[in-house]
């Protein structure tokens, strides 16, 4: 059996002993990624590189500090960014804080815990219209989480607050690659004057309402019309990264018109429709998604790369299939002549 195979098989759990004696190998998880990226391997008492880090972890954890054992400080989360060591606390924290801790060990996954954490870090002190995360996720948990904090033992609170800062940092680091728009926020970071922060929020809102097309770097709202619908909608193209996402969002938005259920009108995402009905909506032959480009021509959506599409799209239109006949070939000619 080759060394590599042993490593893979055993998921880095055991010391590798080759015929030549003890080999000081890096512990790898089953993906072949070095170092202890899995929580379990760090916990086990095994001689390996992981131990070195675990020793460090031990030292830090046993360092005389105030606050709960195992609570994290900012510098510990530095490694996390490089997805090396997953620092799991040696002692489980109080139940209320488990949610907060979770985001550290969850790798790049962003769970609800992250959201909660982000909100609790928002430190709802009344002027945090901006500090509070602007994610569209339901935020019900937030006020309760924060308000609970003062009522806990005073000793915990400063540490918890700072602990969450650290966690948020981990949270922020962990999701840096995935969803930048909804990063967990730390109070007062980045250091921008509140006046400026508030102005940015107002400005992007105003620009979106008044300018059709490209109001600014923060949002790109375009009108979406559908044949036969009584009113138009607007979507922010920057919240999507692929055609699929846009298509699904539009499906949800306009489904009420085709399926005859126009009950509660509201922001996209709130209509409770079954997936299967929606899926057929745009992919079926009945409707075609088109857009008007900078030159004023109506093009079929999907021909050009997403970035190019965002750059040139001025408005969207969901056309009835019968009207759209003949559109596709023309779109291809156009993109050919462009490129």
């Amino acid at each position: 059996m080759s060394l590599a195979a042993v490593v893979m098989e055993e998921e880095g759990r055991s010391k590798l002993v080759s015929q030549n004696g003890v080999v000081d190998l890096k512990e790898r998880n089953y993906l072949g990624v070095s170092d202890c990226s899995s929580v379990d391997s760090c916990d086990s008492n095994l001689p390996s590189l992981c131990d070195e880090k675990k020793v460090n972890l031990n030292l830090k954890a046993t360092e005389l500090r105030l606050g709960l054992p195992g609570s994290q400080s900012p510098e510990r989360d530095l490694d996390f960014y490089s997805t090396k060591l997953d620092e799991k606390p040696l002692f489980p924290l109080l139940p209320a804080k488990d949610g907060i801790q979770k985001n550290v060990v969850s790798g790049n996954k962003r769970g609800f815990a992250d959201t909660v954490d982000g909100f609790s870090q928002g430190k709802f002190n009344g002027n945090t219209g901006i500090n509070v995360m602007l994610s569209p996720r339901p935020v019900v948990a937030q006020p309760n989480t924060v308000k609970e904090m003062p009522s806990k033992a005073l000793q915990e609170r400063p540490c918890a607050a700072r602990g969450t800062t650290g966690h948020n940092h981990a949270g922020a680091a962990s999701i840096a690659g995935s969803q930048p728009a909804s990063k967990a926020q730390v109070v007062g970071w980045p250091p921008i004057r509140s006046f400026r922060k508030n102005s940015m929020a107002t400005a992007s809102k105003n620009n979106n309402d008044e300018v059709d097309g490209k109001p600014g770097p923060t949002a790109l709202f375009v009108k979406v019309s559908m044949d036969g619908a009584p009113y138009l909608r607007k979507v922010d193209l920057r919240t999507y990264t692929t055609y699929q996402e846009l298509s699904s969002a539009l499906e949800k938005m306009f489904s009420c018109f085709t399926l005859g259920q126009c009950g509660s009108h509201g922001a996209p995402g709130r209509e409770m429709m079954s997936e299967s009905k929606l899926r057929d909506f745009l992919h079926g032959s009945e409707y075609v998604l088109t857009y008007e480009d900078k030159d004023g021509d109506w093009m079929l959506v999907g021909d050009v790369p997403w970035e190019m599409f965002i750059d040139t799209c001025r408005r969207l239109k969901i056309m009835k299939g019968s009207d759209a006949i003949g559109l596709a070939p023309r779109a291809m000619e156009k993109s050919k002549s462009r490129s």
Partner: protein
Amino acid sequence: MNYFPDEVIEHVFDYVVSHSDRNSLSLVCKSWYRIERFTRQRVFIGNCYSISPERLVERFPDLKSLTLKGKPHFADFSLVPHGWGGFVYPWIEALAKSKVGLEELRLKRMVVSDESLELLSRSFMNFKSLVLVSCEGFTTDGLAAVAANCRSLRELDLQENEVEDHKGQWLSCFPENCTSLVSLNFACLKGEINIGALERLVARSPNLKSLRLNRSVPVDALQRILMRAPQLMDLGIGSFFHDLNSDAYAKLRTTILKCTSITSLSGFLEVAPFSLAAMYPICQNLTSLNLSYAAGIQGSELIKLIRHCGKLQRLWIMDCIGDKGLGVVATACKDLQELRVFPSAPFGNQGAVTEKGLVAISMGCRKLHSLLYFCHQMTNAALITVAKNCPNFIRFRLCILDATKPDPDTMQPLDEGFGAIVQSCKQLRRLSLSGQLTDQVFLYIGMYAEQLEMLSIAFAGETDKGMLYVLNGCKKLRKLEIRDCPFGDTALLTDIGKYETMRSLWMSSCEVTVGACKTLAKKMPSLNVEIFGEGEQADCYVEDGQRVEKMYLYRTVAGKREDAPEYVWTL
């Protein structure tokens, strides 16, 4: 000792202008102290709690201009709870009582009430200039009082204040015989203003050199205003939103051609896309351009505009300009001295500006001495290059949006990069750090940053040694502000005499305990040591071993302050 009559010495002192020089003069001997205090007209107080208003007035009876700063710097980032302090009323009251002939008042991060503004406007006959930066607590009613009562008002400059808009007619309160305005900046006001009153005011102010409008002034009014004030040198455009095909826009383009004196341009709080071309004719004269509030301008338009601005010395923009755009700046703006790049959304446009943009700037703009740069990432190599290219930095503030991000190329902390900056830039007075940083960077700062006066640290360091390197090494340090760093009691207490040489120290979310703060306060009666949390009662800190959430200490001769709110515990 004194071979000259007092009048001669006074005359000589007139030539000594800077605050620090005048402070030095007053220390030479008793008679110089006496002469200096009676001739001093401008006083700067960096911390309004360091001295009492009465003492100020007593020492400088001839005071004409007062600059006051209130809240700690981190209040800008919501780290100081509401109601902490920084009230200007006692100052105005004391000045008014003593019959000081105040002419100029400049306030930063202070709480200014309408009552204070009214008292101000009624108490000083010769009052000429009011500058409020990042202040709060007043409404347009207060402004109305200033407009109505200050007969010789020359300057009303409101920068980034939180002003409650009462939809009154404050602009109309400038009397018809007020013709002395030189500078009017109300860009931060959110409400409507009386356009007619504004136009009439501009028409009767022949000395108006600086005018910054708010969002509510439409383009046609702007055009009429520019027609009346071709002598303007500093223009802040509120709304630049219009139909590109309209008459108003066409008229504006023609009018702008006449504005050959404009050297500073800002605002564009609302802007129609592709409309900046109207500004091209004046770009070549611009030395200062602030588009950091112009969310509506796209990177490509920004770049086109900046290509025309060959004389630019100061540039404030948003990161939508991108690294490539900064490359254009580097080519076009060889005289650039100050650059600020702000994030266009609190968490930035992913990848908008990186270390590449900064390196490009450093290669093209060798005169750069002030930088504020929000970016997504930074590398040691880039910082080392920048340090080599621009050794003249006085202010270097780098904010990596992910506060503990290491060098993405090497995964190393940014110690070496910042180390290069402090080593190369021998005149560095202000530094803000970010990114992954160990104690090493503080060792470098302590060793090399000899002129450093202000240091801002966040999420950095490993042990108390970091903070100690700085306290021991930076002899000229005046302000140190630290948040979320693992510095604790040892760091705080090792060199307590140092704090008397500094204006203030801020530490929040660090490892400092109540007990240490108490010890410090006891040993150093000349310091006010304030600890507070997030709006809780001050007596929640009962145990010495408890960690302090926020601590702000500053030297003072005024003793414990009377106006601290309940949650502030002055030890």
